[in-house]
C-alpha cells in the first residue's frame, strides 16, 4: 500500500514538474504572484480630492460671479508611483456644448506623491453663465508603452451670476467639523460670523467599577469669513465637558449644549447665549458678551431649562426668554446695571422666540398646551394671545416688521406661517412636508425668508415669498441646526450642519 502511495507521489511530483512548473523554494513561488500584481497595478486613476469643497466634484465654488476665482482640483493616482505623461493633466471647461476659449487648460502639480494621489490644480475666473460644465483628463503610459486615457465624468457648474441682482445662487462654504447648533450674524463689515459647537477631542475615562465613560470636549467656537474663501476660527468658550455615552449604566441620554443663539445690537456688539449641562439633571443658561476683545461669561439661570432665545432693543440692552420646568416662562432684561427677571405662568413645549418691538417691549412666540401663542408686554402688562390650536410643534420663529406686526413661522407636521392682520391671524402653508430646524428673518421688503430642514430627504431648503407665492429651493444635503441672517442691503446667508458633520455656510451671490 505504502509502495503505491509513494509511486503516486513521485508521479504527481514528476507531472507537476513537467506540466505546471515547479518552483524551487517558496520565494520563487511568490514571485509570479508579485509580478502579476505589478502588472495589475500598472494603471492610473483620476479621483476627487479628499478636501473640503472638492470631495464630491473637484470644484470650488459651484456658484459665484465674474469676480469669483473658481478653483478646480483633481487627484492623479498610480500605485507604482509613476507620473502621468508630461503636461497631460487637463481641465476641459464647456459653456453649453462648446469648450470655452483656452480649454483644455493644463493643470499644475500642487502636492502629493503619485502613489497616494498627487493633486493638480487650476484656478480661473469665468464670464456670467449658468450652463457651464467640466471634466478632467490625464494620460498614463504603461510599462509596455500602451497609453491610457483617463477621464472623469462631466460635471455641471459652476453657476456664474452677472452681478445685477436679477439672478443669484448659493455659494457653499465648508468651514469646520462641528457637533451641534449654529447661530449666524452678519457683522458691521457685512461678513458672516457663525457661532457653533465644535468638538475637538473625545476623552475616554475608565471608571473604578469597570465601566467606560466617554466625554466630548465641546467648545463654543466662532467662525468669521475673512476674505472670499478663508474662515478664521476661534474658541469662545472652552472646556465644556459633555457626556456622550455610557451604555453600561442607563444614565440619561447624551445631553448636549443646545439652544445656542446670538444677537447683534446697534453698536455691533454680539451676544451669545446657550444652554449647557451643569449637573447630570440640571442645565445652566450661559450669557457671553464680547468686551474689548475678550468674552465675558456669566451664568444667568440653572435648572430644567429649555427654549432660550435672545434679542436686543434700541438701547442695545439684551432681552432673554427661556422656559423653566415648574416655574413657567422666564423673561430677563438688562436695564443697564442689572438683570430684571419676570415669570409668566404658562407652559412652553418647545422653542421660545423673542423679538423686541420699536418701543423696546418684548414679544414672544411659542407652542404650549397644543396652542401656538403670542405673548407680549405692553404698558407693563403681559398679554397671551392663542393664535391657533396645533397638534404638534416645536420650532417657532417670531419676527416683527417695521410696523411691529408679528409674523410667526412654525412647524406643525408641516411648515407654516401666520401673520396678524388687524385682529385676525392669516395662515399660510409653506411646505407640506415634515419640517424641523427652521430659522426665519424678514428681508428688506418686510417679507419672510426661511431656512428649514426636511428630514425626509435630509436636505436644507430656503423659502421666500415672491409674486404672491412661496418659492422653495433645495440648497444642500444636511441642514440641521440651520440659522439664517439677512443684512439691510439684502445679503443672505445660512449656517448649518452639513451631511458629513461639517459646519457649512450658504451665502447668496447676486
Amino acid at each position, binding site marked *: 500500500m505504502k509502495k503505491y502511495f509513494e509511486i503516486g507521489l513521485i508521479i504527481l511530483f514528476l507531472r507537476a514538474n513537467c506540466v505546471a512548473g515547479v518552483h524551487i523554494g517558496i520565494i520563487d513561488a511568490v514571485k509570479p504572484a508579485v509580478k502579476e500584481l505589478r502588472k495589475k497595478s500598472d494603471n492610473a486613476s483620476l479621483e476627487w480630492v479628499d478636501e473640503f469643497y472638492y470631495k464630491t466634484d473637484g470644484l470650488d465654488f459651484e456658484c459665484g460671479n465674474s469676480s469669483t476665482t473658481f478653483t478646480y482640483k483633481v487627484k492623479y493616482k498610480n*500605485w507604482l508611483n509613476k507620473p502621468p505623461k508630461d503636461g497631460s493633466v487637463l481641465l476641459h471647461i464647456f459653456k453649453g456644448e462648446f469648450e470655452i476659449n483656452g480649454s483644455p487648460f493644463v493643470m499644475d502639480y500642487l502636492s502629493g506623491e503619485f502613489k497616494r494621489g498627487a493633486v493638480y490644480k487650476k484656478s480661473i475666473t469665468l464670464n456670467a453663465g449658468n450652463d457651464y460644465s467640466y471634466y478632467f483628463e490625464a494620460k498614463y503610459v504603461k510599462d509596455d508603452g500602451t497609453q491610457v486615457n483617463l477621464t472623469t465624468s462631466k460635471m455641471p457648474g459652476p453657476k456664474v451670476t452677472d452681478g445685477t441682482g436679477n439672478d443669484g445662487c448659493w455659494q457653499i462654504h465648508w468651514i469646520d467639523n462641528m457637533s451641534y447648533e449654529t447661530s449666524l450674524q452678519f457683522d458691521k463689515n457685512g461678513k458672516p460670523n457663525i457661532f457653533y459647537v465644535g468638538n475637538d477631542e473625545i476623552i475616554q475615562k475608565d471608571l473604578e467599577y469597570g465601566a467606560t465613560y466617554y466625554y466630548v470636549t465641546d467648545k463654543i467656537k466662532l467662525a468669521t469669513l475673512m476674505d472670499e474663501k478663508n474662515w478664521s476660527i476661534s474658541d469662545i468658550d472652552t472646556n465644556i465637558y459633555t457626556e456622550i455615552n455610557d451604555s453600561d449604566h442607563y444614565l440619561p441620554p447624551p445631553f448636549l449644549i443646545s439652544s445656542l443663539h446670538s444677537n447683534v445690537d446697534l453698536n455691533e456688539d454680539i451676544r451669545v447665549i446657550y444652554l449647557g449641562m451643569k449637573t447630570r439633571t440640571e442645565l445652566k443658561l450661559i450669557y457671553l458678551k464680547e468686551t474689548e476683545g475678550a468674552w465675558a461669561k456669566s451664568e444667568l439661570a440653572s435648572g430644567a431649562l429649555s427654549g432660550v432665545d435672545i434679542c436686543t432693543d434700541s438701547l442695545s440692552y439684551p432681552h432673554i426668554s427661556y422656559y423653566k420646568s415648574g416655574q413657567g416662562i422666564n423673561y430677563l432684561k438688562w436695564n443697564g446695571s442689572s438683570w430684571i427677571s419676570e415669570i409668566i405662568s404658562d407652559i412652553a413645549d418647545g422653542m421660545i422666540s423673542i423679538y423686541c418691538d420699536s418701543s423696546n417691549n418684548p414679544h414672544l412666540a411659542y407652542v404650549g398646551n397644543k396652542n401656538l401663542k403670542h405673548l407680549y408686554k405692553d404698558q407693563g402688562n403681559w398679554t397671551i394671545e392663542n393664535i391657533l390650536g396645533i397638534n404638534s410643534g416645536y420650532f417657532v420663529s417670531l419676527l416683527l416688521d417695521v410696523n411691529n406686526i408679528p409674523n410667526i413661522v412654525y412647524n406643525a407636521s408641516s411648515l407654516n406661517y401666520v401673520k396678524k392682520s388687524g385682529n385676525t391671524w392669516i395662515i399660510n402653508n409653506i411646505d407640506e412636508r415634515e419640517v424641523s430646524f427652521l430659522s426665519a428673518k424678514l428681508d428688506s421688503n418686510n417679507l419672510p425668508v426661511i431656512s428649514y430642514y426636511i428630514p425626509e430627504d435630509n436636505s436644507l431648503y430656503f423659502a421666500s415669498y415672491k409674486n404672491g407665492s412661496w418659492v422653495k429651493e433645495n440648497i444642500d444635503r444636511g441642514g440641521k441646526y440651520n440659522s439664517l441672517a439677512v443684512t439691510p442691503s439684502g445679503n443672505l446667508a445660512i449656517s448649518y450642519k452639513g451631511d458629513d458633520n461639517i459646519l457649512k455656510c450658504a451665502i447668496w451671490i447676486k
Partner: protein
Amino acid sequence: MDKIGEKMKVVFKLLLIMMWCNAFNVYGENNESMISSTKSAFSDTSLTKKDIKKPKEKDIKEESTQTTPLERGVINLGYPYIGLGYNYGNWLYGIRGAFGNGISVYAFRISIFENSNKKTLPYIGLELGGISFDTYSLEGNGVESGIFFGLEHYISKNISFSSEFYPVFITVKSGDYRVNRLEFVLNFGFNFYWRNR
C-alpha cells in the same frame, strides 16, 4: 545570471528526482529484505529450544527506550529558508523564514512522519504563512498556505536531508490590488537535530 540560475534549478530538480527515485528503491530493498527475513524466520522449523537465546538485559533496555516518544529540537537550513522545529514522537512543529529578492515569507508548519529508525522517512504536513514584499516597485503583503509531501533522508543520526513538494495557495495584496495564485513548490534542505534518534 538568470541562465545560470535556471540551469542550477534544473540540476537541483534532477538531483531531487534522483533522490525521490532512490527513496523508492531503498524502500523496495528494505521491504524485500524485511519480507525475506520474516519468511525465513517462520519457515525455518529446524530451530530447537537451545537456539532460542534469552534476550540480554542490554537488549531489553534498548527496546524499552523505543517506547518513549522521541523529543528533540531541529534547525532547518535550505534554499532559501531557515527554520526551527520541535520534534515530539512522530510530529514535528516548526517555524520557517524564507528570504530573497525583496520577498519574505514567515510560516508555521506542522508535519507527521513515520516514527521508525529507517534511513528515509516520508512525511506530510501543513504550512501557513505570511508574506511581505518590497520589490518590482511594489510594497505589500499576503498569505500562503499549502499541504506538503516530503521525504527525509538521514545522513547521520542527527543530520538529514529533506525534500518536499507541495501545492501552495498564494494571495498577495498591495494597495487596492490583490492577486491569488496556485503554485507548486519544491523545497530541499538539511536538518540538524539536537539529539540523535
